[in-house]
């Protein structure tokens, strides 16, 4: 296995709520290697988003260890190790698309020339060149989400944490963006951790699929993808793809993910 950029050992996270403690994560062991595309799939409450938030230092684990690029999540954030893409695009309505992508660069104190250069490069990467001066409301939902991906890429972090970024989009746009994301991954070689609810999306995108189950949130199966890295959309009808999807579905079932 390649050098691990994200390494979690016996990771626990317990939220104290009014109705007693909630085990969001229990004994999670996982290593993600450089350049991998790892999907997290599972029902609501299985801790997949929590794992991403712990990785980003937005939540603190109550037990176990996690390192990002060999550092704590907080140090990793200070060294701009990762970009985070949320479920909603969350673009500022008072900033243009270029202004939104520029936001992290302004905060990190880039010079004006470097900002302009990076903004145009990442907008090109997500195929939004020419939309710099538009406001978010002038763009479709899919384009807004692409702009938010560009924003996460702007400061050249080598890890991309994506929390159901396409969850709110319709299937047609979603397919298109999945294809684009694969292209982007191939071109940039970034390490991507991707949370999703969709089995086909997980199988289509990932080099590895982490199946999780709830109460307590834990990993119930890890599936290595046998698909080639070059994946046209049509691959989703191949026997290999369907077999992988079947394994994911079984993983979800044995993890009692369907108990409701």
């Amino acid at each position, binding site marked *: 296995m390649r050098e691990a950029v994200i390494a979690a050992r016996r990771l626990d996270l317990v939220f104290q709520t009014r109705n007693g403690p909630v085990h969001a994560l229990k004994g999670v062991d996982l290593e993600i290697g450089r350049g991998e595309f790892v999907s997290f799939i599972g029902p609501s409450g299985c801790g997949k988003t929590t794992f991403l938030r712990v990785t980003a230092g937005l939540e603190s684990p109550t037990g176990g260890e996690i390192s990002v690029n060999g550092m704590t999540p907080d140090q990793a*954030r200070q060294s701009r190790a990762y970009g985070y893409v949320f479920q909603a695009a969350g673009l500022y309505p008072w900033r243009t698309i270029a202004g939104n992508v520029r936001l992290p660069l302004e905060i990190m104190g880039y010079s004006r020339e470097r900002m302009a250069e990076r903004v145009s490069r990442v907008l090109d990467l997500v195929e939004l060149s020419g939309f710099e001066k538009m406001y978010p409301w002038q763009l479709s939902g899919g384009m807004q989400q692409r702009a938010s991906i560009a924003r996460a890429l702007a400061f050249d972090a080598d890890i991309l944490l994506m929390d159901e970024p396409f969850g709110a989009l319709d299937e047609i746009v979603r397919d298109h963006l999945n294809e684009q994301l694969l292209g982007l991954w191939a071109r940039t070689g970034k390490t991507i951790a991707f949370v999703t609810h969709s089995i086909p999306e997980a199988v289509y995108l990932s080099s590895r699929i982490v199946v999780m189950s709830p109460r307590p949130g834990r990993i119930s199966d890890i599936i290595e993808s046998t698909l080639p890295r070059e994946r046209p959309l049509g691959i989703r009808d191949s026997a290999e793809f369907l077999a992988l999807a079947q394994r994911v579905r079984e993983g979800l079932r044995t993890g009692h993910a369907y108990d409701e």
Partner: protein
Amino acid sequence: MFPCVPNRATRLEQGGKVRRGQCPDPPRFAGRCMPLPVASGPKPPKGMDGDALSRLFPILTVLAALVAVWYAGSVWMNSGWTLAQAERSGQELSLSEIVADAMVQERPRLPPPHQVLAELKKTVIDTKVTSKRSLVFHSWITLSSTLAGFTLGTLVGILAAVGIVYSRTLKMALMPWAIISQTIPIVAIAPMIIVVLASMGVEGRAVPKAIISAYLCYFPVLVGMSKGLRSPDGMQLDLLKTYGANGRQTFWKLRFPSSMPYFFTSLKIGVAAALVGTIVGELPTGAIRGLGARILIGDQFGNPIMIWAALIMAACLAAALVGTVAGLQRVTARRMGFSR
């Protein structure tokens, strides 16, 4: 209007090749889908020529109704004096005589609109603005105090809101007093403010009036801004956290711009409150200048026409102030890209 985030106008996907989200219920013309305007909430119509009249019509209708009620009220309220006079001299009056008399009394209970207008013409247009009889002069006195109080109140309101949003201690320490301050009648406090300031050696009434005005005006700004500065959701705050943004950056890049819609809404309430504060500040203090003083003098000398003229001036002033804030709001909204 200041729409928060207009609906996602789903257009021009892929550089204009594919159009999505168009025509949810398309108006059809010759069997073809008519392009809809970008749907983003109500917007002022662009072409004013035809629309101006249709927009003016409801306003004029209400105005006409108000004037009619006013005239009817004048006849009804002023007829008492006419009838009493007639009874004393043993005269019988017809309805038309009563109405005619109600329109021209020197000290009517409710002066009819044309008498108020005549007074306004006399004191606004026919009198030199430097004269103490000019309503423009008195309006200026009131306006300058209002603007000073509004500026002071807005600054205090914003600073207090920032303190409350960033410090739990300040929130618990300030907020109850802010609320209590608004439950005390301003007429009770105004004389005290003047006495205290006078004993501190502050000459004249301009400063105390501005403080009274600020006292009324800071509260809506405080409430609106503390809500507005808190309006960004958890996700937006988390996003800035992942960039390692500090408190100052979070304030200027996110909290402050997010609060703008709330800010202008509270400014509209605040500027009206500041005007009321100034006028109230002029009432119980023996002021001889300003619209409040005109109302007081009109009352003392039994001159309702004077009171009503001052009231109308105050209403015009309030409309102008709120209108100015609304204009600023529109300009800001356009510059911030909220509407286009």
